[in-house]
């Protein structure tokens, strides 16, 4: 098979000439194709079937023990001028970068199949969506891309119609960390990644395309590619407001996206709808509002900490058609991770017998991959080609002191400053030293594909006559009292804070003005 698009055929031929695969397979995204690939991976030992009674069509993948996370020090943004990549990125000149990484790609697919994956980031008919093609030698990547993106024939048809696409070349190489690179060429809308089979390094639609290349495309085309969840809050009157929120890792982004309202709210008729848990593409609509899509079609979530109390919705979607990476397993072959329940697993994430007390059984960055539609709080609005209108943008960090539970920015400019100043604090608990504050503007530090200074200017540029921009807020769920304990219960109770924000958006509640922003009146949070 080939494509009707000559530039795509030519690129596939060039890559094949460099990497020398035994076979080329064009992915159509069908169920039959997935079945063949799954059997192949089971035969090769890349996948292991989990308990078919409790977890039908669920599989476990164990990665190489040295290949378990993104690798920021091996991730480069390769622009002609270093200033365009900015101090927030590792930089290499494109000529040098291509030469270095192409040498690693030479002959790397000998004995392997080259898979061509056409994919669409966002609803297939959405004007906000953008397409790409990933070439990989990993069937595990194909299976994950099928869950995480709209992959196959429909995407290829759109690419042939549009005539252009983001190019992503990936090989697991020999998995040697010394021969591992994740390189981005935004001026060429190209990604090259070798030496890792792990999520963010290998599923090129996610961080590489949807954020690093996406942020570059967004700047040149006048939209925003952001590291944000999208959640819909429906009030008892049946009106739904959508909120986009950016948090650094380990701040509960997936939990907030799948929030379950506290009992009192549920009884009153409040509902929470999940559009996305990680990435948000926003574009100004004709009505001046920002309209957002989730470019992804699935969740690639951190497993540890996911339990009935922290995220019952996530748990409910993980018992069918899911891929688990680097989790532990129980005696009856069910997936298990720390924070799930009190059972004791028998095998750790490396497949060794688990000895209680010998450290975590699941890798702390172990993951699940599952289609978004399997989430109980998923809404068909996630498939709406127009996207959803955003009422509020929320930035948040993990700060033990100083930063209040919530405040509202005075206007767009102040809001952009709030996002740019976002930070998390790490406490050196053993020494009792004051926490080190690490800035992570808009939670985009590892993901912005160009100079942060230019990125801030791009954000400011949306403040134009006729624009009806969302209000911007900052939250901090992690403030501690003088007794060293968290002051806020978090989880479902976070809905109280979101409710206050939405009342502010509707102009139905007063705020207290302070130099750093506008705060709720105290009685609005007491109950």
């Amino acid at each position, binding site marked *: 098979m080939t494509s009707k698009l000559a530039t795509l055929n030519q690129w596939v031929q060039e890559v094949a000439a460099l990497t020398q695969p035994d076979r080329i397979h064009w992915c159509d995204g069908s169920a039959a194709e997935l079945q063949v690939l799954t059997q192949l991976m089971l035969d090769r030992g890349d996948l292991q079937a989990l308990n078919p009674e409790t977890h039908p069509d669920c599989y476990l993948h164990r990665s190489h023990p040295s290949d378990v996370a993104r690798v920021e020090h091996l991730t480069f943004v390769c622009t002609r001028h270093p200033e365009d990549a900015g101090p927030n990125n590792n930089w290499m000149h494109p000529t040098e970068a291509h030469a270095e990484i192409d040498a690693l790609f030479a002959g790397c697919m000998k004995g392997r199949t080259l898979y061509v994956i056409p994919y669409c980031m966002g609803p297939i008919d959405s004007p906000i969506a953008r397409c790409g093609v990933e070439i990989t030698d990993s069937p595990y990547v194909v299976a994950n891309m099928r869950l995480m993106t709209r992959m196959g024939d429909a995407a290829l048809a759109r690419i042939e119609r549009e005539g252009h696409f983001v190019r992503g070349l990936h090989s697991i190489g020999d998995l040697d960390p010394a021969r591992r690179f994740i390189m981005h060429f935004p001026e060429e809308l190209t990604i090259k990644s070798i030496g890792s089979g792990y999520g963010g390094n290998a599923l090129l639609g996610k961080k590489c395309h949807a954020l690093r290349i996406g942020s570059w495309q967004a700047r040149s085309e006048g939209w925003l590619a952001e590291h944000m969840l999208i959640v819909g809050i429906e009030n008892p009157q049946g009106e739904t407001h959508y909120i986009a929120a950016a948090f650094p890792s380990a701040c509960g982004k997936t939990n907030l996206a799948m929030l379950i309202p506290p009992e009192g709210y549920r009884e009153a008729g409040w509902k929470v709808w999940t559009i996305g848990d990680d990435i948000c593409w926003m574009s100004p609509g004709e009505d001046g509002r920002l309209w957002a899509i989730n470019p992804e079609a699935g969740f690639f979530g951190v497993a540890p900490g996911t339990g009935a109390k922290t995220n019952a919705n996530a748990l409910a979607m993980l018992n069918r058609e899911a891929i688990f990476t680097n989790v532990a397993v129980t005696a009856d072959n069910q997936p298990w991770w720390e924070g799930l329940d009190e059972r004791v697993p028998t095998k750790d994430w490396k497949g060794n017998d688990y000895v209680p007390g010998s450290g975590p059984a699941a890798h702390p960055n172990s993951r699940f991959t599952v289609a978004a539609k399997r989430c109980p709080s998923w809404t068909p609005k996630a498939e709406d080609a127009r996207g959803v209108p955003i009422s509020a943008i929320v930035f948040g960090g993990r700060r033990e002191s100083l930063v209040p539970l919530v405040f509202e920015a005075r206007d767009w400019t102040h809001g952009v400053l709030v996002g740019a100043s976002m930070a998390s604090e790490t406490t050196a608990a053993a020494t009792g030293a004051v926490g080190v504050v690490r800035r992570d503007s808009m939670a985009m530090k590892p993901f912005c594909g160009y100079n942060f200074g230019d990125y801030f*200017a791009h954000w*400011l540029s949306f403040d134009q006559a006729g624009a009806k921009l969302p209000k911007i807020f900052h939250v901090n769920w992690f*403030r501690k009292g003088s007794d060293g304990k968290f002051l*806020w219960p978090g989880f479902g109770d976070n809905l109280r804070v979101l409710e206050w924000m939405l009342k502010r958006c509707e102009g139905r509640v007063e705020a207290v003005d302070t*130099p750093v922003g506008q705060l709720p009146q105290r009685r609005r949070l007491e109950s």
Partner: protein
Amino acid sequence: MDSKISEHAVEQLLHIDEHGWAREFEAIADYLDEFGTHTPARLREEAARIAAQLPSVEQKVA
């Protein structure tokens, strides 16, 4: 999950320590400087506008 949140906790959650924020805005200004001339002037001016409403940061003893 429908926990009561005490008056005292809410007071601490919403407390603004203006001296602490003055130091925070000093750090924010330094951070914005890391991107040199690429940082938009409007953002620096906004940070300066807020800092001007906060108490001045005490001189560090050399």
